[in-house]
């Protein structure tokens, strides 16, 4: 089973829930897909055993073959190619590639009539894999200044090992990086806080998951600070509330020091394991129907 942990609003406790859930189960693989700001390793402290550069293919033009026909520029939907035909003798001609705009779709290479384009790898980040006890751990880290996190997220997800329970820590928000992370999940845990901010962004996240057809439930973090808006919304929409985690200074301090709170507050092992069992039960109920 693949369970992703997402939120809409940032800082509600995605990584906290993902990490503590993972530590409460056996036979787990943990994927940190928040490649812009990966944090799970700060808590799980995995032994990294493999490190791989993540790349995207970008075009390179062999100008000895190019006749500056402009087809590549015409097919590029991202304005990542500029072609200067120059004068009649091709003086001042050239092709400019803007790698940051390129999505790596391969269209220019495929459609160049003179086969003057081939693809080269451009580094966008690093993927590291390792172990944390008997837990498999994988995360991606986007290089500074890079804007394309979705391809890196897709590459992290190629490590998914289905015979384990896969926990995916997703980035905040509701746009492409989130979609890429939660796509293909069997279930998504949405972590929120009971404030108008938490509620507003939860509603957006719910719309995303409904559009993607992924079943989900809600964890309310710092559940005693705020108002009843989130609770009422979940009840009125029949969204299962999977767990309440009350505000606890001890949890906040443990978090600040990178210590998963189940290690100190053992009663939560049981709560997370029970939550996982409830998710599994709900999923089986659904598939047998």
């Amino acid at each position: 089973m693949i369970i992703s942990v997402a939120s809409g609003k940032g800082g509600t406790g995605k990584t906290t829930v993902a990490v503590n859930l993972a530590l409460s189960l056996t036979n787990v693989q943990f994927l940190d897909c928040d490649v812009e700001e990966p944090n799970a390793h700060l808590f799980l402290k995995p032994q990294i055993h493999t490190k791989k550069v993540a790349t995207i293919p970008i075009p390179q033009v062999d100008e000895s073959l190019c006749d500056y026909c402009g087809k590549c520029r015409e097919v590029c939907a991202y304005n990542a190619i500029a072609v200067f035909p120059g004068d009649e003798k091709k003086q001042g001609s050239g092709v400019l590639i803007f790698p940051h705009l390129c999505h790596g779709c391969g269209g220019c290479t495929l459609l160049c009539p003179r086969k003057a384009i081939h693809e080269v790898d451009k580094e966008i980040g690093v993927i590291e894999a390792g172990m944390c006890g008997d837990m498999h751990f994988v995360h991606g880290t986007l290089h500074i200044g890079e804007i394309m996190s979705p391809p890196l997220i897709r590459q992290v997800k190629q490590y998914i090992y289905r015979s384990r329970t896969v926990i995916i820590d997703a980035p905040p928000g509701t746009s492409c990086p989130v979609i890429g992370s939660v796509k293909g999940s069997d279930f998504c845990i949405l972590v929120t806080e009971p404030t108008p901010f938490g509620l507003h962004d939860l509603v957006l996240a719910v719309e995303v998951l409904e559009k993607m057809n992924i079943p989900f439930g809600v964890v309310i973090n710092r559940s005693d600070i705020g108002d009843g808006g989130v609770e009422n919304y979940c009840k009125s929409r029949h969204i299962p509330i999977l767990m309440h985690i009350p505000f606890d200074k001890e949890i906040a301090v443990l978090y600040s020091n990178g210590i998963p709170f189940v290690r100190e507050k053992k009663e939560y092992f049981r709560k997370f394991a029970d939550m996982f069992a409830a998710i599994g039960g709900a999923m089986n109920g659904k598939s047998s129907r």
Partner: protein
Amino acid sequence: MKQIVVISGKGGTGKTVLTASFASLAGNKVMVDCDVDAADLHLLLKPEIKERYEFRSGVTARIDRDICQECGECISVCRFEAISQDFKVDPVSCEGCTICSHVCPAGAIVMEENVSGEWYISETKYGPLVHAKLGIAEENSGKLVAKVRQIAKEIAEREGRDYVIIDGPPGIGCPVIAAISGVDLALIVTEPTLSGMHDMERVAQVSKHFGVSTKVVINKYDLNLKNSETIKQICEQADIEVVARLPFSRQVSESIVQGIPLVEFSRNGISGDIALLWERIK
């Protein structure tokens, strides 16, 4: 005119609460919410929408099943796994590269323009607010961020405003880069947690990479004094000024529940610190 953006790397450190307080403290300004996929600033500033525009960006493939010969050429060229074995386009995965429409021998694929969100010019009691809503599961948030920033800048120039105050998105990717490019100051809000510190260092590298002047605020500094000290040292080494340390305060979530900027919810404690912070960066 001075453009100030509030960013953080890590989400939930207090960007919007600070931005709304600046909106209340600063004179003669325009506000922008650049967190277009989970915008919250309007919950505190209570805008009245004056103008509403569609945000059109990118295209999505549609296969005309009456013409489609099911040859599979489109599936084989698509690198985004957006076309299923039964020739259905998944609009969420489609990145609008258009290659399928070029290779389809039957001409069965058309590219349709996306309406991927809306943006608004609003009036608030603090001044104009430019904000947006990215459509559910849509792309191109960076372009929408660039759009709202450009509009806000135009308003500020036209009306002779002194400040453009920008609520930034979390992360370090496409929307963040669009939110910080060309600003006069990027204010990073961090917290004394290992995650907050890690993410602050990364987003500070991004602002440095783009040559943006950067300062740091440590929020909830008293949650972990040792880590707060480490943040100070990290910033010293990177030649970044720590302009304020704000205490943990339950007033913050209470003010959000009330739906008003923190500095208006209370005048003392953390609100006084924020007023002082504004004086230092304005």
